[in-house]
């Protein structure tokens, strides 16, 4: 799996949406543009943006709505708390987006449990990458971004638990997801 991180670092910009704790990271990964939505209120999620070398470019959920309306981005990948996922999903669905990948990342039992749902080709390597990255697991999302966005309709799931404690300033239950224009 080739890493995309170096490429992303040179192309990203962020729109922070503190009103909902979301940040949007633009990227032009692969042939068709992708965007990332990151929970600005959560340290773990911010790590993804830091790792991508993202910069700030806005501060309103209305910006998200506007982008969804006029954007050519084909897929949106997120790492957010659940309510922020819900906000995105509610905006994306009527605009014809379909869920391609979903994950939950749960620190609440003192370990870190990843549960991912996607297509078969994606699930095993992605779960392994999440586990191998340990505390740096958000970077595995970045590395797998192109693959997540190409995932077919989710049908398979996998679960993995790692001995990783919740870092300070992080939410204890996060969701990752990918919505793609149908």
């Amino acid at each position: 799996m080739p890493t995309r991180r170096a490429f992303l670092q040179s192309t990203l910009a962020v729109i922070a949406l503190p009103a909902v704790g979301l940040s949007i990271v633009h990227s032009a990964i692969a042939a068709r543009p992708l965007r990332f939505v990151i929970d600005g209120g959560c340290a773990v999620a911010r790590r993804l943006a830091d790792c991508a070398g993202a910069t700030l470019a806005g501060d309103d959920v209305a910006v998200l709505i506007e982008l969804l309306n006029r954007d050519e981005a084909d897929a949106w990948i997120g790492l957010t708390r659940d309510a922020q996922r819900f906000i995105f999903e509610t905006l994306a669905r009527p605009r014809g987006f379909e869920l391609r990948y979903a994950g939950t990342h749960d620190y609440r039992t003192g370990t870190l449990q990843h549960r991912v749902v996607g297509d078969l080709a994606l699930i095993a390597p992605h779960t392994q990458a999440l586990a191998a990255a340990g505390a740096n697991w958000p970077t595995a999302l970045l590395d797998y971004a192109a693959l997540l966005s190409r995932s077919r309709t989710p049908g398979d799931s996998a679960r993995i638990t790692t001995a990783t404690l919740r870092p300070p300033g992080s939410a204890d239950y996060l969701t990752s997801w990918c919505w793609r224009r149908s």
Partner: protein
Amino acid sequence: MLPPNLTQADFDRAMDELRAVLGREWVIAEDGPRRASYRDPFAPRDVDKSEPTAAVAPANVSEIQQVLTIARQYRLPLWPISTGRNFGYGGPAPRHAGTVVLDLKRMNRIIEVNEKHAYAVVEPGVSYFDLYRYLQARKIKLWMDPAAPGWGGVMGNLVDRGAGYTPYGEHFMAQCGMQVVLADGTIVETAMGATPNAKARHLYKYGHGAWVDGIFTQSNFGIVTQIGIWLMPEPPGYRPYLVTFPHEDDIHQITEVLRPLKLGMLVPNAATTVGLIWEAAVKVSRAQYYDGKGPLPDSARKRLASDLNIGNWNFYAALYGPEAIMNNNWKVIEESFRQVNGAKFYFEADRGGDPAFAYRAQLMRGIPNMTEYSLLNWVGAGSHVDFSPISPVTGDGALKQFHIMRDLCHRHGFDYIGEFLVGWRDMHHILMLVFERNDEERKRAVRELFEALVNEAAQAGYGEYRTHLDYMDAIAETYHWNERALYRSFEMMKDALDPQGILAPGKSGIWAGRSHHKRS
């Protein structure tokens, strides 16, 4: 599921006719993400019970009239929504499966903003974000009043009699002038708007003769297509503040202190007294404080209050006006609340970096945001339904309601997550029942709790101001004085205005004569 009394063949024909009027894109009858977006994802019961059979989205009044003609012909039930964000009360979903959602989001024009007389006229699809951006872009010195979720709509929220947090927080009170399409396709302008070339359409509410605007709110008597809304002139000064109180039973004294301040308009806005967990849940989650079942124990509540520097009750309001007036008012307000032992006072500068203070400060000056959704993160993957009884602004009333609701929540294994929103002469007591979305056991517990809340509140003499789809009939039954005289009069109006019962069957427990049998 098909609408009642309609065959598949008739339904398909109706959809084809609708496509001919609206275009294929705006008749959403196929299974898929677009139709799924009209479900209620927060439903505590099976979502299929309110699954819409299709959605249609007209672009103007003439298309609405044509949709109505087809609906009357086929007896197709239509559920009008404006922005469709009524989450906690049913989202965009209809009361009954088999209903077609009439989505008015494409009618999203801001028709007028009159700076001189401080009002706006909007169509259904205008969200708070839209209106705010419009005012900002044109540097118009008027404030609007958003509900907590900024993606909601000026009209949708108002016709469901929602509330915000500025001095114009009682939304229906700020409404002036309405355009409504009746089930037979007639367009009605209410009040002054009924005079041709009306000069005061959005300035005087009542016109001549019976004043009918109210019957088009929380009801199913017409489709509202335009609304006038008064906006607040930007005041010369604004100072939001927070007062925290240490004990649960302080709600008695807080409310007694507050009543004269509200009546005397020293607290001019729709102020809120927010419970501990509501205040905390914007910032932290339950699992960070307690991993057991049942309500948060006292020890965890104490830690929460001390870590976040908040009270068991947290009172938010704001000063508006010239400095001298704000300073004078503050003296009275501070002196009044100091009577409550342990009261602590904060202004914006004292709460830097506090997201709860920040979003409340925005709402009380009419800036829309979405921060309150973070409350759902309290339980990880949360949903919620709201239980919202009205309380008098008295210490006894507030304490009694609080005790009833807290104790019932605890008995059913839930945290009490509530706030009192004080309007003019009443308080909306909003109880957010937050539950794990994917946990069937918790959903069942919520349903049991909700039933108990409705019954106990009714026995104690408290009615709800608004409710979730699933409980519309149950709440309607509590308004039963004089053998349901009020609801019988609604039914007479319904039968007169919409004899086929095609508009929003079951909204607020109102059914047309022919569909009475459909009450759950």
